[in-house]
């Protein structure tokens, strides 16, 4: 097993407005010393409540924000030590899928253009080649080739999430960070998207880092899980182990809180 992405003592503090002239401005430690290793081929879940820092962690992993301290290594590269062009090249290996399928697509671009954007940004390519690959990505996520000329508002929430996933796989990345990819969707649509992610893992060799508040989603899709609380990882391990023999009280509370369907 090789480490696909790993963090070391990763921290991100945000400054708050001063409440006194004399004291230093207070800071929020959104991410506060996180060490984690995501192995290639093993989906990694990060669970926690809102405010636990899991979304900030997602943005740090993708180098969308600079950390206050610590490092993120993608394969052999220290992301924050790379030059701008080298970082750009590294981005081909990692993509993101957001929670809100309404906000994550530009309303004024056809979905074909949105999907092709990562290719246009990262590689020299002809328009015909971009179109061909966008169509391939569209069909891989279960949409039709004709859909490339439509605009986001012509799709339902679940279909838009498929488009967002198509955009994420179009450069054939090794890593996709998915930040609550199904929590804005109807329950029956969640299952379709989760199955799609499961399929892509096999067909495209993608490793997912799944940020979620929902343990059932994490159990379905992930091999390893880290439980975050107030910017720190309180427990980490294989999903089955953490679910069945949680070591931390907080993990137990999270598991107990999941609404359950009656069993027969």
């Amino acid at each position, binding site marked *: 097993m090789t480490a696909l992405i790993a963090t070391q003592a990763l921290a991100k503090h945000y400054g708050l407005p001063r409440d006194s002239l004399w004291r230093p401005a207070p800071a929020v430690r959104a991410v506060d010393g996180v060490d984690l290793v995501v192995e290639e081929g093993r989906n990694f879940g990060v669970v926690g409540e809102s405010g636990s820092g899991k979304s900030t962690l997602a*943005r740090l992993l*993708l180098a*969308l924000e600079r950390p206050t301290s610590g490092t993120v290594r993608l394969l052999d590269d220290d992301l924050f030590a790379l030059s701008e062009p080298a970082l*750009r*090249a590294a*981005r*081909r290996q*990692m*993509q*993101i899928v*957001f929670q*809100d399928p*309404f*906000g*994550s*697509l*530009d*309303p*004024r*671009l056809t979905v074909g253009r*949105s999907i092709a*954007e*990562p290719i246009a*940004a*990262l590689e020299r390519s002809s328009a015909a080649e971009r179109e061909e690959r966008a169509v391939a990505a569209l069909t891989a996520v279960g949409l039709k080739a004709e859909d490339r000329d439509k605009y*986001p*508002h012509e799709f339902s929430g679940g279909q838009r999430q498929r488009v*967002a996933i198509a*955009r994420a796989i179009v*450069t054939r990345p090794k890593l996709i960070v998915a930040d609550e990819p199904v929590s804005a969707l109807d329950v029956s649509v969640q299952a379709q998207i989760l199955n799609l992610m499961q399929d892509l893992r096999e067909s495209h060799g993608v490793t997912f880092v799944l940020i979620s508040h929902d343990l059932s989603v994490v159990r379905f899709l992930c091999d390893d899980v880290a439980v975050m609380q107030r910017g720190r990882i309180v427990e980490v391990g294989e999903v089955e182990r953490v679910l069945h023999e949680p070591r931390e009280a907080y993990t137990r509370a999270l598991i107990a809180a999941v609404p359950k369907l009656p069993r027969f």
Partner: protein
Amino acid sequence: MTFVRRALRHRSFAVGAAVTMLFAFMALLSLVWTPHNPTRINVRGRLAAPSPDHWLGTDQFGRDVLSIIMAGAQNSVAVGVVAVAIGMVGGVALGLLAAACRGWIEETIMRAADFLFAFPAILLAIMLVATLGSGAVNAILAIGIFSVPVFARLARASANAIWTREFVLAARASGRGPWRITGIHILPNIASVILVQATVQFALAILAEAALSYLGLGAQPPTPSWGRMLSEAQPLIFQNPMLAVYPGIAIALTVLGLNLLGDGLRDLIDPRLTRSRT
């Protein structure tokens, strides 16, 4: 198609567009035809009352008032178009730059805009014309420059809102640089807001031009101009008030039409943006 139908049903948009188009048509028509030569002086036919030959009468130099109003529309439209173009291109570019760069570049641009903003616009234009010299071109420049901060502020505020959207974050995650993001995602998404502001600035530019010409700082004789018509009518205000009323009506109607058009556009464009969520 549905947009056009919705637009025609929107009363203030339809009225605004009709009035605006009427004046634009008048300006175009005057390039090729006016009832009389608007600059020809006719000493014998001074201050004539409206007649079939001179629909709105003549002024103290015997020029046909309707012809001057028509030709004056040319001047107003030209000033409006060029000044708004200057303000829009300069302001939007600066606003987008500020939003894309943040940090000290943003601070510098926005504080400069604040500085310009602190002066009353017309005073600023007078100052500029006073330094650059009077004349139509300088008036246009001055009016254009004073609308730069308006567009810069609006563009930056709207662009900042778009920059926080997730599709922009996705584009950054894809490796797009700030300039391409600005071109592909930011500008198209703020274009409608800028367009609405442009119609309002157009109206303000026409007013400002009229004011400068009235003060003798704008279009120079013999170029026909509504503002100068007002100032020329001033000594005769009690004797022959209609000479001031006609250009006054022309200015008021045009400004009203443009404002209605802008309001209508705002209504027509906004719901489409907000409705995409439901």
